[in-house]
């Protein structure tokens, strides 16, 4: 066992690992983010309860096709990052960097869809003050989109290091750190999509 795998037991055989993949600091950050989204989702669900007719009517005005497309993009981005980590574990550095770039591409796709989705709403004069539903819709989805941008920034830095050969099968702790954050962004959307776009 190398000194690296001794420090990061998740890199070893089939035993249960002591810590999750990546830096522990990012996991503290991830848990804080999950808590923030938990509060927002619960507040949304119970505010909706008090304004059922408004929320049900307004939700029908959302573009659920765009919501689904963005879900597919984030899932695909998460898959690309998982493939990047699998590739570097097999010491395929070039392939790994390509998967990371593909993941960043899905993030760009997500933001492009969001740009057109918001554009269509803003063109109708909809904004944060339109009604309570749209306050939640804009605040929740923009807050999430900010996390997509941060996730893309982190993946960009990881990619930059990856193309310079900065990761290997023995040393890919930094890549796992970025990957964990990106998966969190995907995980949160898995709840946000049905909650805001689908369930009435």
């Amino acid at each position, binding site marked *: 066992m190398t000194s690296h795998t001794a420090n990061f037991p998740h890199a070893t055989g089939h035993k249960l*690992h002591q*810590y999750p993949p990546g830096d522990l600091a990012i996991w503290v950050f991830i848990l804080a983010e999950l*808590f923030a989204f938990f509060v927002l989702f619960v507040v949304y669900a119970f505010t909706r309860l008090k304004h059922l007719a408004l929320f049900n009517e307004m939700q029908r005005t959302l573009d659920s096709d765009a919501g689904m497309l963005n879900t597919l993009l984030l*899932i695909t981005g998460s898959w690309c990052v998982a493939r990047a980590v699998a590739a570097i574990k097999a010491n395929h550095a070039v392939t790994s960097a390509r998967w990371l770039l593909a993941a960043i591409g899905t993030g760009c796709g997500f933001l492009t869809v969001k740009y057109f989705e918001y554009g269509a709403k803003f063109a109708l004069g909809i904004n944060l003050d339109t009604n309570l539903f749209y306050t939640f819709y804009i605040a929740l989805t923009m807050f999430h989109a900010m996390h997509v941008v941060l996730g893309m920034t982190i993946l960009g830095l990881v990619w930059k290091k990856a193309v310079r050969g900065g990761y290997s099968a023995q040393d890919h702790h930094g890549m796992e750190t970025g990957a964990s954050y990106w998966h969190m962004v995907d995980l949160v959307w898995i709840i946000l999509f049905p909650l805001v776009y689908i*369930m009435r």
Partner: protein
Amino acid sequence: MSAHFLNVIWVALMVATALTWFIGKTGQMGATAVIAILLIAALKGWMIIYDFMALRRVKFLWRGIVLGWLLLTLAIILLAYWLGLK
């Protein structure tokens, strides 16, 4: 995690997403649809946590915290929607 297994998870997540979208498109919302949508979300979240986040082989404390977040969030949403359907 093998590349093939990750591909299977990816396809399963895409199909599950299309199913959620389809339920929404039918416009038939009620207790059954809400429960189905939340169960699909739980399954998708579970796959992401276990196989993409790679917490499957991490000690239960870490896995439990993230899974607990997923299930608690969905349970509270279910409660709020159930109260709305009454």
